[in-house]
């Protein structure tokens, strides 16, 4: 599942670009981002036309069936996302043992 500041319309228009089958949620007002404490309060790179006033820190979480966070990766640089190899290793470590 993904959460980004794209509007539902943008998600519908752009999702073919990355071919993700995941559920993609729109968080233009950052309410979900704020609930997780992931709003980037530093400088951000959104173009002036972008709908939201701020951006989340790129983050990846693994969550168990009870809703507990098993693993968390925060990116230190907003131009970078979690390394897929790191995420896959974490999934193997945490999900395969359950």
């Amino acid at each position, binding site marked *: 599942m993904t959460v980004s500041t794209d509007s539902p319309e943008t998600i519908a228009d752009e999702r073919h670009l990355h071919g993700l089958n995941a559920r993609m949620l729109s968080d233009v007002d950052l309410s979900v981002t704020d609930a997780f404490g992931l709003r980037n309060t530093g400088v951000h790179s959104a173009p002036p036309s972008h709908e939201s006033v701020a951006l989340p820190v790129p983050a990846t979480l693994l969550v168990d069936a009870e809703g507990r966070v098993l693993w968390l990766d925060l990116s230190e640089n*907003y131009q970078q996302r979690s390394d897929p190899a790191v995420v896959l290793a974490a999934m193997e470590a945490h999900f395969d043992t359950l």
Partner: protein
Amino acid sequence: MAAGMKTGTKLGLLACLLAVATVMLWFYLTRQVSLPDDRSLFVVAFLAAAALGVLAFVKGTSLPGALPPLVAIVIGLFLPFTISISKQTVETDRVIAVGDVIPRFSALDGQGATFNSDALHGHLVLIKFFRAHW
């Protein structure tokens, strides 16, 4: 006519061409969600355009010829500048941590339907936060 141009003016045009071509490629790849992870070549190209722009002024340009190197310098410094200030800041006392139960939330999906986080219960989930499609 090109033969009559000052060396600085020619260098300025070259600098501007490099800067504009690089920035166009950057935004094209951004649009295609296929920017490479290693962006050092982009930084080199942008800095080279800016440096050529400065060199153009050092060599001397005509008055209208000053515009292309100026454009090259502004564009050329943009990406290295954004990279240099791109450190993240979160309010550390609020950020979710390993062992926490995730907050309940609802949000619209790509079809405009409301998704409620209660539906995640009983499932292993990977949640990815990212800024936007660009």
